[in-house]
């Protein structure tokens, strides 16, 4: 039987430097999370399909990789880390006092269209703060998001904040049919400026109108909050005030320069309930960090607790960082059989600059050094050590 030697669509092998790049980002992130008092959770790679339906998570079913277990139940390769953690928090941790601070460092799997150049395995590192709501909890999460990207060694990046409640508040008194509101949300999400204007025309008298028709443009620095506040009537005023106050907290924490706003962020409104945010880095074609507040998620698992969190696309961050240079071994260590311990410490202290020769004779070691294009052999003989240049 002939086995195929290539990997499935959307997956790939990662070699040497790429592994170090991924691990470097992971250890920077998990180091920060631990220092902030977050505890790691590892959930199964495989879960019941029902879990992700129950959680109200808006993942389309075709994006999940499925299989069937022996009893006939549908399994999926974990397509998201938040729902499994919500499951744990609502069940295994149900008697633990809140808040719970949890982090994960796991791979998620998505099945997508072939040949788009997207990976179907995504290494994610993220946190969940369960059982805390309000400004302090949001500020903790957002400053963590800023510090996390900084810890990875990124220089040009920002975290962009929006509020899922703002669009809801602005459209509440519009008197527009549900489909029209959904169409507005979709145009807003696409920043389809002109189409949104046309759709809003009949609603000029609504109190939310002045903000709504500028909403797609209200992204950038904290000045967009001033603009929104000046335009807003009663509708949306509370959310805007909240964001202003949150910004002040973040500024006081030294994160002000990294914070931007997009008041037009209105994703998946039945999932996110408050602040939503994204992280953008120069050199990455999509957001590398994404998160928000989802206060109703745990209720779907039977525990009524607010929650917020974010996930970072580890490889998305890693590919914007300078590549890791692997140390190149230039020396072979040829040793007498009884001097293994010395040979090993010689290798360890060289930090990758030398390799152990497995050859019995010096001639074989010299041939090996030539093949590997190394320029020195360290010879450990009984009682002495010498260096042979090639």
């Amino acid at each position, binding site marked *: 039987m002939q086995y195929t030697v290539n990997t499935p669509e959307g997956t790939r092998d990662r070699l040497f430097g790429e592994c170090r790049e991924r691990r470097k980002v992971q250890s920077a992130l998990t180091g920060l999370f631990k220092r902030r008092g977050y505890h790691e959770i590892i959930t199964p790679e495989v879960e019941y399909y029902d879990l992700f339906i129950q959680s109200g998570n808006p993942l389309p079913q075709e994006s999940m990789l499925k299989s069937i277990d022996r009893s006939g139940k549908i399994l999926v390769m974990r397509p998201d880390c938040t729902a499994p953690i919500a499951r744990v928090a609502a069940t295994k941790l149900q008697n633990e006092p809140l808040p719970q601070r949890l982090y994960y460092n796991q791979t998620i799997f998505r099945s997508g269209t072939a040949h*788009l*150049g997207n990976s179907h395995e995504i290494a994610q590192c993220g946190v969940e703060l369960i059982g805390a709501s309000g400004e302090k909890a949001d500020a903790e999460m957002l400053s963590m998001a800023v510090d996390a990207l900084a810890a990875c060694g990124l220089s*040009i990046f*920002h975290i*962009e904040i929006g509020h899922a409640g703002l669009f809801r508040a602005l459209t509440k008194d519009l008197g527009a049919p549900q489909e029209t509101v959904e169409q507005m949300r979709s145009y807003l999400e*696409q*920043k*389809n*400026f*002109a*189409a949104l204007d046309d759709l809003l025309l009949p609603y000029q008298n609504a109190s939310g109108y*002045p903000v709504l028709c*500028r909403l797609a*443009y209200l*992204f*950038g620095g904290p000045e967009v909050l001033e*603009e929104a506040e*000046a*335009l807003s009537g009663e509708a949306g005023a509370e959310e805007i005030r909240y964001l202003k106050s949150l910004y002040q907290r973040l500024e006081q924490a030294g994160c002000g320069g990294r914070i*931007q706003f*997009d008041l037009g962020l209105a994703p998946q409104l039945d999932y996110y309930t408050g602040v939503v945010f994204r992280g*953008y*880095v*120069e050199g*990455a*074609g*999509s*957001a590398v960090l994404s998160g928000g507040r989802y206060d109703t998620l745990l209720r779907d698992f039977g525990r009524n607790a607010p929650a917020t969190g974010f996930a970072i696309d580890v490889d998305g961050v890693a590919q914007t960082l300078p590549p890791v240079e692997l140390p190149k071994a230039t020396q072979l260590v040829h040793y007498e059989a009884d001097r293994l311990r010395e040979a090993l410490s010689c290798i360890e202290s060289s930090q990758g600059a030398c390799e152990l020769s497995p050859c019995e004779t010096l001639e074989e070691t010299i041939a090996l050094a030539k093949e590997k294009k190394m320029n020195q052999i360290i010879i450990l003989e009984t009682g002495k050590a010498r260096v042979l240049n090639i």
Partner: protein
Amino acid sequence: MSRLRIALTKGRLKDETMKLFEKMGLDCEPLYNPGRRLIHSIPNYPLDIVLAKGPDVITYVEHGVCHMGIVGKDSILELGRSFYEVLDLGIGKCRFALAVQEGSDFYGTYKTRRIASKYPNVTREFFEKKGMDVSVIRIEGSVELAPILGLADAIVDLVETGDTLRANGLIPIEDVAQISARLIVNTPAMKLYPTEILDFVERCRTVIQGTPQASA
């Protein structure tokens, strides 16, 4: 950020796009004799132009290797994906239509109909909305052939004047979607270079609508 990069759809849409750019005051001289070059610089505006096929425009913008793109709504509907679709440019207008052989009664049977199209996703979605089961067959070239050869009961295709359909004994019986060219923007690019991108978008919008967006 020095120069923006935009991907334009090659072919007829390119000529209409150049006219639009010229109205915006961009010097499109390098595009008149492109030769074999695929990247061109606009001399009087910080913009580099990449020429590509429609679906590739979407791919380049989605991956962020081009900041913006100009592409037909037909490709966007067929391929989906994630980016900002900021303006309807009002050029490259046509429509997706369902067409059948003259005299045939498309809806008058309970048999599962077979539809040929270059746009299988658009076709599937159109009939899904109607709650109708159809079998979609993908054809790459002249889709009109499929009903003539007896391979399909109908086609879903781009229709501009309808001349090609008529010449082959087909008539459009229903519109599926109206199509025109769109200006699309990579999501992080919009956030990282808002001044540059919004300047370009507003120039476009001013030319299309004749008035600048009233800023508050």
